[in-house]
């Protein structure tokens, strides 16, 4: 039972990070209808930015306030990076075929990964140890041992989700985002500045990925330039699982994938862990292509 609760918490913690990344995929898909392959690399950059910030400030003692500051700074940098990628690589390709944009996205992803691996321009190929972000404490509940770090991930994630919900549903920009994802042409006809909203969407999604990067690094305290690929792919699977374009769906999908992966890791099948997510993806596309919370669209003929 203790074992189960422990794994459950680990699963939710991992799933929360997948959820943060998945939201970025799903938001961009909502407004532009393409898979932003470079999103997983924004996640990776996010953990490096966190690493640099922590190195730079040389916290003697990790503090709660310091951790939040690093997280906020990190999200801002990643938001900028997301907007930059969009402006430089995707904007010139508006209205081109999905394929062209998709391949460009793959190109951007390869570029970021390889720049990051480069010793001169980037961080170098070797993994780096990630210092503690928040003050950590072990809590004891009967047989169950919890570290505050494990709790921090779902708590921070919930906070970010609340802010996201407020932005999407209670602000003008959020309303414009939703309008754009319904119908881009109609949105521009009623005076919405599509380019500005698309940039905003990238900023929002990338900042969440950045937060995900820091939280991931905090729990698996080693970072490297290729760390984004697998979590990125799994988060994408989470977005599809929940119904791509659907925000609550992405969060739900993330948590589910995290749970499945954690529980599989505890069994003999643990080495197949990375294949499981794709097996889920293929199954979901076969039986419920619109995802758990998505609605199937009928193609107009």
């Amino acid at each position, binding site marked *: 039972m203790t074992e189960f609760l422990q794994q459950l918490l680990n699963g939710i913690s991992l799933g929360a990070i997948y959820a943060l990344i998945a939201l970025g995929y799903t938001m961009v898909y909502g407004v532009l209808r393409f*898979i932003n392959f470079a999103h997983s690399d924004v996640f990776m950059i996010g953990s490096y930015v966190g690493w640099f910030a922590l190195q730079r400030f040389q916290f003697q003692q990790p503090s709660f306030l310091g951790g939040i500051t690093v997280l906020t700074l990190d999200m801002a940098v990643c938001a900028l990076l997301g907007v930059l990628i969009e402006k430089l690589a995707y904007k010139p*390709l508006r209205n081109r075929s999905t394929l062209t944009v998709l391949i460009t996205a793959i190109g951007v992803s*390869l570029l970021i990964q390889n720049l990051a691996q480069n010793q001169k321009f980037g961080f170098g190929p070797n993994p780096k140890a990630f210092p503690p972000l928040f003050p950590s404490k072990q809590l004891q509940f009967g047989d169950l041992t919890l570290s505050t770090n494990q709790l921090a991930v779902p708590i921070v994630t919930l906070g970010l989700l609340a802010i996201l919900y407020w932005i999407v549903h209670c602000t003008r920009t959020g309303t414009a985002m939703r309008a754009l994802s319904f119908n881009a042409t109609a949105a521009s006809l009623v005076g919405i500045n599509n380019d500005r909203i698309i940039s905003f969407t990238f900023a929002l999604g990338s900042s969440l990925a950045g937060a995900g990067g820091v939280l991931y690094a905090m729990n698996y305290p080693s970072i490297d330039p290729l760390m984004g690929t697998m979590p990125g792919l799994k988060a994408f699977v989470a977005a599809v699982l929940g119904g791509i374009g659907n925000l609550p769906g992405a969060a739900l999908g993330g948590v589910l994938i995290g749970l499945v992966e954690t529980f599989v890791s505890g069994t003999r099948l643990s080495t197949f862990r990375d294949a499981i997510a794709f097996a889920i993806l293929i199954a979901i596309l076969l039986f419920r292509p619109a995802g758990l919370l998505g609605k199937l669209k009928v193609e107009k003929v």
Partner: protein
Amino acid sequence: MVPPKSQRLLIATLAIAALISAFSGRIDAYLLDVALGAGISIVLASSLNLINGFTGQFSLGHAGFMAVGAYASAMLTTTLAPKLMGQTELLQWVVFPLSLVAGGLLSALVGVAVGAPSLRLKGDYLAIVTLGFGEIIKVILQNLDAVGGARGLTGIHTHTSLFWVFGSAAVTVYVVWSLLNSTFGRGFVAVADDEVAAEAMGLNSTHYKITAFVVGSFFAGVAGGLYAHLKGYLNPSGFSFDKSIEIVVMVILGGMGRHSGVIVAAVLLTALTEVLRSFGNYRMIVYSVLLIILMLTRPQGLFIWPLKKRKST
């Protein structure tokens, strides 16, 4: 009866490949290695061109199919065949080509298994499923002790010669070309152009897509077999996502759905990889920048000929 021109061309190419192969001992070893690599690239790119170029599907899992063929044929020649018949000359001239075909067939079978359920998916969804499939293959290979697991498979006989590589390339190009150049074959392009209209004209779009997947993955498997018997060792990590991307780039560079453009691109990119080798760590940076610039400026491919007037033969 005189065979049609395309078949005469195929036979001529095979003969030339055999001739050059006979004198391959005199060719500089490095140059030979690059040429063999280029030939295998032609097989890979032409077969992917059928799926991604002509039929308008988007597969990102070609390296996965290649891996299936590579491991299957390597296991046949190194483990199974010597057990059955010992070390004989037959290995190189009979068992090896048979193992290529067997690897191709197994790969085609996997192609159906992946293709059939996922072909309802469009564009980027299909891309991500095929990508996922490639990763699954890699993970399975890494966990299969019988094929060396993550350590890889070593001690494969190096049977691959100029004849087998360019013979396979010629057959691949012939098959893709002949499939396309018939009333039946224009259906591949029709499905790519407009699936709804194609169905309305009585074309079974699923059948076309599966045919493309089967033929495409068969030749990817053959290419894998050639690769295995060229290098002499295999490692699952050699068939990663990056390898699939490399093949996709060849197809795009050559102009999707163009036979000769894609062949030229396969050779060019193989050569470029050699040139970039001197750049060491910068190789992939240059490669990805090239890819982005290409997409921004010439998404239709490098070689744009004016639309050739097709004689209605």
